[in-house]
């Protein structure tokens, strides 16, 4: 028997140990052993799936066209650079000028007139951003301002990081660039503003997730 096959079998045996019951998923977890078993199960499933042919990936343009056809509400196209994925997100709620957009897997971006103010469901989320520079960016003016970004840290507390930012015109016409520095990190957000609304942007989420590019498909 080949070692790889042996490993798969062992994993299946372990997986068969995992729990059963009539409780919800929240109740029937079986501790570290259960987590291991679940992992093994997924590894087996992944191995099986990798052997099967998959449909060719659709390009972002094709997916955008399809989403616009299916979904009548506001839509954005978000590219998470560090995760290497581009997703179409649909608006699921609006509170004042702040909109929440979600993927089908319920990961969320929260935007206020195109300005990123939070993320959810990504593991290293931005809890909330408080950009003092927002008015400068929307009006296309130059100037300085502070930007407070709040993150949920590993010890279970919401912690603020403060950055000093400079806003000015970028190299390309119509593009506003916001350069921020603080805590040994620096980043640059770029915005394309039309009538006070940010229609296309590349914005920094945080140290772990890096940049997201946001493009409005339907405002």
């Amino acid at each position, binding site marked *: 028997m080949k070692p790889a096959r042996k490993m798969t079998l062992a994993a299946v045996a372990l997986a068969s140990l995992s729990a059963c019951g009539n409780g919800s998923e929240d109740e029937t977890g079986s501790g570290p052993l259960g987590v*291991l078993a679940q992992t093994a199960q997924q*590894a087996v499933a992944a191995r099986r799936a990798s052997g099967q042919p998959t449909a060719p990936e659709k390009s972002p343009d094709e997916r955008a066209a399809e989403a616009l056809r299916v979904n009548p509400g506001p839509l954005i196209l978000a590219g998470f650079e560090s995760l290497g994925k581009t997703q179409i997100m649909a608006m699921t709620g609006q509170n004042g000028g*702040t909109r929440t957009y979600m993927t089908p897997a319920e990961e969320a971006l929260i935007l206020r007139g195109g300005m990123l103010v939070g993320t*959810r469901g990504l*593991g*290293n989320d931005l809890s*909330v951003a408080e950009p003092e520079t927002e008015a400068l960016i929307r009006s296309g003016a130059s100037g300085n301002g502070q930007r407070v970004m709040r*993150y949920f840290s590993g010890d279970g*507390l919401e912690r603020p990081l403060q950055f000093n930012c400079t806003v000015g015109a970028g190299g390309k016409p119509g593009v506003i660039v916001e350069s921020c520095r603080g805590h040994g990190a620096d980043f640059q957000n770029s915005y394309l503003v039309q009538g006070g609304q940010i229609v296309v942007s590349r914005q920094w989420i945080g140290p*772990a997730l890096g940049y997201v590019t946001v493009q409005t498909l339907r405002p």
Partner: protein
Amino acid sequence: MRRSLLVRRLMATVLPAAMLAGSVSSVAVADPMLGRNMSTYGLPGGIDTPTAETLPDGTLGATVSWSDYGRRGNVTFQALPGLTTVLRYSRIDGINDFRREGYISDRSLDLRYQIVDEQGWRPAVAVGLRDFLGTGVYSGEYIVATRNITPTVRASAGLGWGTLAGRNRTIDVNDEGGTPNLDQLFTGGAKPFGSISWQVNDRLSLVAEYSNDNYVATYSNGREFQQGEAPDSNVNLAAYYRPGRNYELGLYTIGGKTFGAQFSVLLNPRDAPYPSGLEKAPAPVRPRPSPAADPEGWSGQWSQDPTAQPAIQKALGDALAKEGQILQSMALSANRAEVRIRNQRYINQAEAVGRTARLMTRALPASVETLVITSTSDGVPTSSVTLRRSDVERLENTEAGRIAAASAVTDADPFPGDLVRSEGVYPRFRWSLKPYLDLGIFSAEDGLTYEVGGEARASYEILPGLVATGALRQRAFGNIDQRGPAIGLPGTRGQYYTPEEYLADPALETTPEGVPRVRSDTRMYTGNSDPVIPELTLAWYAKPARNIYTRVTGGLLERAYGGVSAEVLWKPADSPLAFGAEVNRVRKRDFDQLVDFRDYEVTMGHVSAYYELTQGFTAQLDLGKYLAGDKGATLTLTREFANGWQIGAFVTKTDLSAEEFGEGSFDKGITLSIPLSWATGQPSRERTTTTLRSLSRDGGAQLNVNGRLYDRVRDSHSVKLYEGWGRFWR
């Protein structure tokens, strides 16, 4: 993409190098004097000699070090920013005791306190006690200063006593150990020691030190042992390599002829792989339409319609169920709504409350302005968070502190008149069938012990607070066999009765010192190849008055005892202080762990005071009578992080003398509890919990009944609720 997510998540915990690349905490503040390597004694810095360095606050670490001098397994906890504690299990080669095996097993405890951190020209200074409980092989004390010479070179110099001065103390062969040797601290003459460390690059550091330890152990009966080979030089050298921030490999030489290797793991509760968790995004708050757009909703007329509440309660209950919350009951009027929820998913109650508030804005008619979210535990209401709906609408997507300031936490009304119970919640039957794994890691005598098998468990909640629970276990395999207690007569150390010998003579169920064996025969309950019943109980939880909680549990309470246990707790929702009392009438169960009992019966219990200190510390003092009928007190100090990590230590001293108690002199131990959600990012209330206690002894033994009130009630009370409040908008 979803498929292999858990795999990658698990990998992220196993390979922390990747997980830490650019975590929030690495966007740095000024660094204190943090150790660059772990010593053979499991402390930050040096090889054998100490330094004044520390670990990041809250770090939990383990270091295993091997050489011809023996093997040291160290568990390290940075209990406070300046206080490092080490619990050590070592095998010391070259010493013969009664077993004549050429080595001894030894436990020891170290404390080090950094008095000042480095500042300007002034070095960091620390004082430390090594192996200070009883006179041990490693006993010694020191004062040490450490300073950065260049950005990469760091020097330490200090004065050492005991083994650190090469003047090891004489070990009393009759001492049971476990009590501080205060009269010997800093005695016997001091000698200087020192070390230099060079951080070659991010991963590699080199250390050279001057040490006086000559690795000799002297006993009061005149015997003297050289551990390994006497060091032929005072100079020790080492190289340490950190492949990831959480792992370290080390190679060292003591005196040039003896070589050693070590491996360390360091975990920091602050470095979670997915700090914000991977739970799905919460439902956005839905603001109300203007009164002009929804005159009917704003008028409150809808509340006259008898079909309104059932429909709203059903819709809200379904939405909450998707969030892992059970809507137990609800009261609804034109401008106020109260929901009583049972949180089954989130480790921070604030997240459950926040998500419930979001869903309430989506489900309730516009005229409802006051939102009351009452947390429950075992069907009993524990606290109410009152929010104004307009604040929830206004403060979504702002920092969590603002909604905290606009909220009120109060005691839940035990008997409100207008609550309507949700349909289909009670009675509630739950069963599960799953594998179990019992692991024993830190037994010096037995090494690694384990048992694997299957467990069937069922619970039936007849009414809110009235729960019948049963479990059945079947062992599959393992090396935890049935065994009698240690014989405990002179000259028989390390020998045990066989199960047959122990069963044949009932007189053996009392120790030679006259103490009933309430825990020291615990191994008689293991190794059953037939099914056993670990637990079979009927429990009743109630809240008879505003701040008062009660529990009565009857049946087979735990593996070794059955009977009745009753508890009462006074705990106002916004008070850091609580008092409790517990009385148990229990009988010792038979070793087959079915429904038979043995002859020993006792009435025991305690009164308790609890206090929530700052920085996540809680203190608990129990005074009372223990299982063996001994009277005394237990003091427990626990440090808890908002993410759910709990690290605690306890000591119990009773009126048993050190001789009656036996090795260790009194009961003490460490408890660790790590939430699984911290490691996987998946929301869950599950945790892995371990108690490291010195030995199973009969003095100061507690009853292990499930469902003690304090921790269950406290989750939703103000100190803990606000500590985890950052998750309100998660």
